[in-house]
């Protein structure tokens, strides 16, 4: 269970024990309940912060008399999104983001659980920092914040972090954030040790030497723009090594971001061999490509870089087939000073918590992906990988729920985004599917106008 929910104190504490029913909704999301409810409209009954019932049987007519009833008018109700890769700024980068601002953005974007990146200042390599994050999340967060902790001490890639003690403090996964571990012996030992604790290892696969000075995808576009490129192999070589180490050690391995078809081949082989290997793709790599960089737009400078359109399509197909497990926001707030620079000098990263659902819905409306699969990759699969009880419409699951109309159009206005930084690649973009309501543990943490 993830601790740390400021929501309880900040919102509607007076009605904490009043049952809440979302009725007249289109339910989307995994459930062990009868498949029949998918056909028609239904509802979700929430008691004491947990889902008490879900399906067509939950309707206005047969609810407890004291229940508060919300008519969803046929909108989608699904589990809240679980984002396995976001930078929340604390501790040490509060000028870029705070738990308060990140979770406000998350709530508005329908994200109810954030796995926070450990490469903060200081990094999350001490049990006391995990404890700090959990307390900050409890006191200032609107949605759940689950800390991930460093895989190696100081993220230096040299010595194993205190995985046992960090796990006991509440770290849900182990990763060096944006750092890729260069030394295979170190990673092997870290994965062996993690396996003993049944800990999830999340690794960012990048051969830094091969990536070199590259700032965008290697190829025609980079050449035309006069920018140095990062070959796809920089990712694939390290991922291949990692998967072999997963086989050697038996550790649960999750590739933080895959962006190329070369990586997909490696993941496919690992899964076919039955290895405990999973992977994620960022919403950016699913919905944008290198040509969107256009006239040196630094908000689209990402690491790994945006790839070619044919690669993007392969990523979407792999997501549709389940080869890619999870969609992440890769939320990475960068302030104006570090983005308003020549492309090669600008920082990497884009914010994404608030727009990941809408951006994902683009793939649904274009027919590339089903709504069910989109929601699964943002709810059930991350919950399964992180072993969280959320992400499902099951009786007894925490009532982390969102309501949205997947077809309601809007235009992204950066000024209205909740993140402290406005480096969205979707500024002024036409989107569909704005979140209208977000519940965490049965309590309303966001309500759209």
């Amino acid at each position, binding site marked *: 269970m993830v601790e740390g929910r400021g929501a309880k104190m900040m919102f509607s504490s007076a009605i904490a024990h009043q049952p809440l029913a979302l009725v007249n909704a289109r339910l989307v999301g995994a459930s062990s309940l009868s498949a029949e409810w998918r056909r028609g409209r239904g509802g979700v009954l929430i008691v004491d912060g947990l889902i008490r019932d879900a399906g067509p049987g939950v309707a206005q007519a047969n609810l407890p008399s004291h229940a508060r009833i919300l008519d969803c008018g046929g909108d989608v109700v699904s589990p809240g999104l679980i984002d396995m890769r976001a930078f929340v700024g604390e501790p040490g980068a509060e000028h870029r983001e705070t738990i308060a601002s990140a979770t406000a953005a998350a709530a508005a974007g329908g994200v109810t659980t954030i796995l926070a990146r450990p490469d903060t200042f200081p990094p999350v390599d001490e049990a006391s920092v995990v404890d700090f994050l959990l307390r900050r999340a409890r006191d200032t967060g609107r949605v759940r914040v689950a800390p991930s902790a460093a895989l190696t*001490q100081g993220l230096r890639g*040299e*010595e*194993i*972090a*205190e*995985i*046992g*003690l960090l796990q006991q403090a509440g770290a849900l996964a182990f990763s060096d954030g944006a750092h890729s571990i260069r030394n295979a*012996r*170190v990673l092997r*030992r870290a994965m*062996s*040790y993690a*396996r*003993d604790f049944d800990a999830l290892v999340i690794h960012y696969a990048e051969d830094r030497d091969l990536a070199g000075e590259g700032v965008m995808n290697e190829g025609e576009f980079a050449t035309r723009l006069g920018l140095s490129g990062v070959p796809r192999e920089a990712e694939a070589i390290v991922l291949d090594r990692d998967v072999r180490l997963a086989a050697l*050690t038996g550790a649960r391995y999750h590739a933080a971001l895959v962006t190329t078809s070369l990586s997909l081949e490696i993941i496919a082989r690992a899964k076919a061999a039955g290895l405990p290997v999973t992977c994620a793709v960022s919403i950016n790599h699913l919905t944008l490509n290198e040509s969107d960089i256009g006239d040196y737009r630094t908000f689209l400078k990402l690491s790994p870089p945006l790839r070619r359109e044919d690669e993007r399509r392969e990523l979407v197909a792999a997501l549709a087939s389940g080869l890619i497990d999870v969609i992440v926001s890769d939320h990475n707030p960068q302030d104006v000073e570090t983005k308003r620079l020549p492309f090669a000098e600008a920082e990497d990263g884009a914010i994404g918590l608030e727009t990941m659902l809408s951006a994902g819905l683009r793939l649904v409306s274009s027919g590339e992906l089903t709504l069910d699969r989109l929601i699964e990759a943002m709810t059930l699969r991350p919950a399964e990988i992180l072993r969280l009880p959320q992400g499902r419409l099951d009786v007894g699951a925490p009532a982390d729920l969102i309501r949205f109309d997947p077809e309601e159009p809007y235009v992204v206005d950066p000024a209205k985004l909740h993140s402290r930084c406005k480096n969205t690649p979707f500024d002024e973009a036409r989107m569909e599917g704005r979140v209208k309501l977000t519940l965490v543990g049965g309590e309303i943490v966001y309500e759209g106008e």
Partner: protein
Amino acid sequence: MPDPQRELRFPHRHLLGIEGLSPLDIAILLDLADEAVEVSRQVEKKRSTLRGRTLINLFFEASTRTQSSFELAGKRLGADVMNMSVASSSVKKGETLIDTAMTLNAMRPDIIVVRHAQAGAVHLLAKKVDCAVVNAGDGAHEHPTQALLDALTIRRNKGKVAGLIVAICGDILHSRVARSNILLLSALGARVRAVGPSTLLPAGLKRMGIETFTDMKAGLRDADIVMMLRLQRERMQGGFIPSAREFFRFFGLDEAKLAFAKPDALVMHPGPMNRGVEIDSAVADGAHSRIREQVEMGVAVRMAVLEALAQHLPNG
């Protein structure tokens, strides 16, 4: 006391490892050691078994307890004992292991006790000398007298070794003590477990018939013997484990973890101990501990080994 086994001589010229010893060979040594315990507990501890013989302690690696234990064992049996700490002598001047062995051999010793940092070095040396050779530890390979003294301690406390569950815990990877004990205790019919983080468990243990555990509580469950190994400080810097405090929390033997073993379990440690790293002081000094008894058994086992090898010496 007429004992039919005593009529059987220990059949080996050297003691290079537990590997190659039969259960009967081991029993011969342990029986001799039982007698040596009695000798050592008398006021007059001196025997004349090795009178006139020369014993050289050749230690390429620093050691206090093993070297003094062999020295005492040799002296109690009447031998002339010479200690050579090679770490500070000709080896530093570039002499090879074989040249050192040939030089010593020319001095006509009867038994050489050797410790070396490299696995296999003692075997190499044994091929080049005419006298008996005892392995006092070669790299991460074997330390046969330690395993024998552990078995002696167990047998004297439990009356047997066969059928006991022995959990060897901690840094198995770098431990010659663990390897020798695995061979010896398995040969005598004990069920041996290796318990430690995966980073400190060597590959292939399961194929050697050893159960492995990465969780102390599971590994200690119903154990008759809990054998802790020394975690070497340099291993902590080497990236095998995150820190001493984490190691102690999850793999250090404290009262709570010991409670998973049998109520009459024995706690052992080859020494020297890192208190608060692999073992809690309360356990090291507690009622289950046989750590000090192990030291006493060490002298007795070494007397037994020297006596057994003396049977093969010329005019022995």
